[in-house]
């Protein structure tokens, strides 16, 4: 998959911004907000992983 160019630095809590993910999705037939929320919640887990590798371990 072609890597998308990041326009801005992701804010804290974010690795792979929803806006980039949205560009991957050709369309969403159902609840887009639900997809966004879950994407962001799990993305934050990835964020927490690397920052705790740095801070805690």
């Amino acid at each position, binding site marked *: 998959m072609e890597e998308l160019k*990041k326009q801005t*630095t*992701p*804010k*804290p*809590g*974010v*690795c792979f911004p929803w806006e980039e993910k949205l560009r991957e999705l050709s369309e969403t037939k159902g609840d887009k907000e639900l997809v966004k929320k879950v994407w962001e919640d799990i993305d934050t*887990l*990835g*964020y*927490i*992983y*690397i*920052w*705790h*590798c*740095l*801070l*805690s*371990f």
Partner: protein
Amino acid sequence: MENKSGDMEKLYAQRLKRYVTAMRNGKPDKIPIRPFVAEFTAKYAGFTCQEVTHDYEKAFLAARRCAADFDWDAVVGNMVYVWTGLTEAIGLKYYAVPGIEISEQTGFQYREPPEEQAFMKPDEYDELIRDPTAFLFNVWLPRVSKYVTAKGEPVSYHNNLSFLKGGMAMLSYFNSFGRQNELLRKESGTVSAISGIFKAPLDIIADKLRGYLGLLTDLHERPRKVMSACEALMPHLEFIALSGADSAKNIPIGYWMHRGCVPFITMEHFNNFYWPTVKPIIEQIWSKGHQVLFYAEGSWDAHLKSFAQLPDASIVYHVDHGDIFRVKKEIGHKFCISGGIPNYLLSYGTADEIRQCCKKIIDGVARDGGYIMDASAIIQNDASIENIKVMTDYTREYGVY
């Protein structure tokens, strides 16, 4: 059964009130006792350092055994914080692990690489500044892990497992603290001492990225890059601190202070780099209702005037090698103070020496409240069980308001 759980809940409530009152710089019923016991718990519970470092369930059990037997108000759920089972799964290279690289009876060691092998190169500041999270994943993690492959290299089985195992193990570990805190409460009425973690941007650059010597060079040769890097790290460090904070806003966030003080850096560097990239975060955290425990390792006495700029009661200030009486004089009217009992005394001192030290500190620092009894530094397996008991029992006897 019902009576016991009711008694424990009552004891927990008393201890929580005592601990929180002191932390808000008030005068509770007694001086709270909150020893940061790490490998000491292994010694007490009959485990090796290897056991508590590599198997966190044993570390949890050891902490609970101590909490049940000593009349302490608060403990850290696991002060042997680096779970080396996890670090081995990720493949982190910078730890000497008890039972692997070092004796099973020695606490884990952080090994800073030589200057020329620093995990971040001097010409990589821009990449860090542009996107710190991406930098950590793409550049830093492949350098610190023997399993994670660098960007552009072929992905390996070990790489994939490092992420999968590391992620699942970390989640499992962090989630276990909730159960540990509940067990401490139910089994012994003990409060969990801290919640959440913070470190200063400049300390992160020294500890984990450029190394201490690399940072010192950078402060002279590329100061603007260092400052920009600190500023880029700030929002992330604040986010992580708040993400682990106590939702009830009783328990402080732990702030581990390393080499950001004089003489490790100059006063000018502290005033122009370290403090301006820490103070706003502490103030922001306080604005959300959370205190921060300044665990001031070594001596930060040269910077007390800076800390005094913070809002009243926004921090709890822990004393290691600093002059606790000077600390009391300069900032004791604003903040609760903890610590000050030298660790060497708890290892090699006599019972009388310990009682005298506790008395001197209680008389000099704790008369108006706002003091928590603890050793100067993390208590490891060189501390004498009998001496810890003396410190505890004497404080209970003499530290009553």
